């Protein structure tokens, strides 16, 4: 047993290994399915008024999926990250860990396992969305979706770093989750800021749609800023944890 195995067991025995991928699989199923049945649904609720709805396209299936991921996925990852990174929430557990191991030794396995699980979940969700879109709506632009999913994985690292930084300021899992979700939503809106918006982490969440719209791959600045910001937040968190009394 060591701190890496502890995190592996945490994923297995608290069913995180099923729940988080489950959220993304659900998003991957619901997105294309909703896009497929939306015209029929609209006809059902039209109350006799004839509505002409164009046939759903693979593009719409993926967009529906992304809408789910940006909401449900982000909240899910933030909550699971808060559950892992708020190791000072219970003093007795904090005493057990902190009297035996340094902060980097405690933080590293928690960050890596949470990131790994979230990244795999994102990729599984994208795969499911692609398959179901293909089955229900037609061939989707797979290369764009995979590229967008990989860019979202970079953003997942940023989500976990934000949560970790907040956990180093507050102890409660719930408060950490709520603050992190609000902070991520606000930071996601910063793409509206002229000139700098395109280089901020929130840009990565829109990459799939932009690529499917025919946009060029212009994400290196956003990737660089996201990685640097994530590393900076982890450095801040590590120092904050080390200085925090238990």
């Amino acid at each position: 047993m060591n701190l890496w195995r502890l995190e592996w067991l945490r994923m297995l025995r608290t069913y995180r290994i099923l729940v988080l991928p489950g959220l993304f699989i659900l998003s991957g199923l619901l997105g294309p399915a909703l896009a497929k049945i939306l015209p029929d649904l609209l006809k059902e609720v039209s109350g006799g008024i004839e509505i002409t709805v164009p046939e759903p396209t693979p593009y719409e299936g993926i967009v529906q999926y992304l809408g789910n991921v940006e909401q449900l996925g982000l909240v899910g990852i933030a909550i699971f990250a808060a559950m892992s990174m708020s190791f000072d929430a219970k003093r007795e557990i904090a005493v057990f860990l902190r009297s035996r191991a340094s902060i980097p030794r405690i933080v590293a396995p928690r960050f890596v396992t949470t990131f790994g699980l979230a990244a795999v979940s994102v990729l599984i969700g994208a795969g499911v969305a692609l398959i179901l879109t293909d089955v229900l709506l037609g061939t989707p632009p797979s290369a764009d979706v995979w590229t967008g999913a990989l860019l979202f994985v970079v953003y997942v690292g940023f989500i976990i770093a934000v949560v970790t930084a907040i956990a180093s300021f507050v102890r409660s899992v719930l408060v950490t989750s709520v603050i992190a979700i609000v902070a991520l939503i606000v930071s996601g809106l910063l793409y509206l800021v002229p000139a700098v918006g395109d280089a901020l982490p929130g840009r990565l969440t829109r990459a799939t749609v932009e690529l499917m719209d025919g946009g060029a791959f212009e994400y290196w600045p956003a990737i660089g800023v996201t990685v640097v910001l994530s590393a900076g937040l982890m450095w801040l968190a590590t120092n904050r944890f080390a200085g925090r009394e238990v």
Partner: protein
Amino acid sequence: MTATPEQTVVTSSIAKAYGQTKALSNVNISVDRGSVYGLVGPNGAGKTTLLSLLAGLRTPTSGSIVMVASEVGVLPDTPLFDRWLTGREVVSLARSLAQKEIAEARISEVLETAGLSDAADRKVGGYSRGMLQRLGLASTVVADPDLILLDEPAAALDPKGRKEVLDLVRALKGRSTVIFSSHILDDVEQVCDTIGILSAGEIVYEGSLERLLAIHGTERTYRIDTEDPGAVVASLVDQEWVETVKVVGSSVIVVGSSAVAVRESIVRHAGKLSAPVTAVTPIKRTLEDVFLEVTE
């Protein structure tokens, strides 16, 4: 400031404040190697704060700590572990986090010593409070630390659980240095060589229990058995060698200002009383009486 080869912990004028609130001030303690040191004090006296400072989990506002220990084990008052781990996994994790190599067989050994062999492979979420306390102790001692800090290890346990935990602590004597905080004086009396009494953040006594009882515990308190306690009390209240006097049933309890003064005066005074006195007996005070006196 340095520690002698016989000492494991020496503190010099430690103070700790939380904002405007002083939790500890001018704390000087010295803990001998291999001893069990009882840190005694009422709730809120600063015991947990002092142990946290010694564990390095908090930083003193001023003062310094010298610790000669390569491995320090810390047990909080209510040990808690991830519910989904088994007892064996908790101890195994503690072993893996030790500074030195520990044989795997040590895990089963400490679990057996803690009386948890049968429950070792059960999830700790189903453990009782006493079992968690013993598991905490097992995971604390698995690395054979030089210094073990135990915060109220027997508090809130039933008598059987308390005895088991105290037996475990007693077994550590000589092998490790143990600092053991408690407000249960009976526990301290059973296992500690030296005690430090904390009151309102200050050490008001440090030394052996015997010395404490010798200073505060005997010779100053006497019981006078009489048929007229009221008259005896009236005759005593103005005596300069009397500190306090009170009636308990048909007896009068007298606490003198000093052991010598009361010993020299009380029998002579009793002989002069008009009220019939049947006995004058020195009372050996309990540790609890002494503790209350010292911490007031």
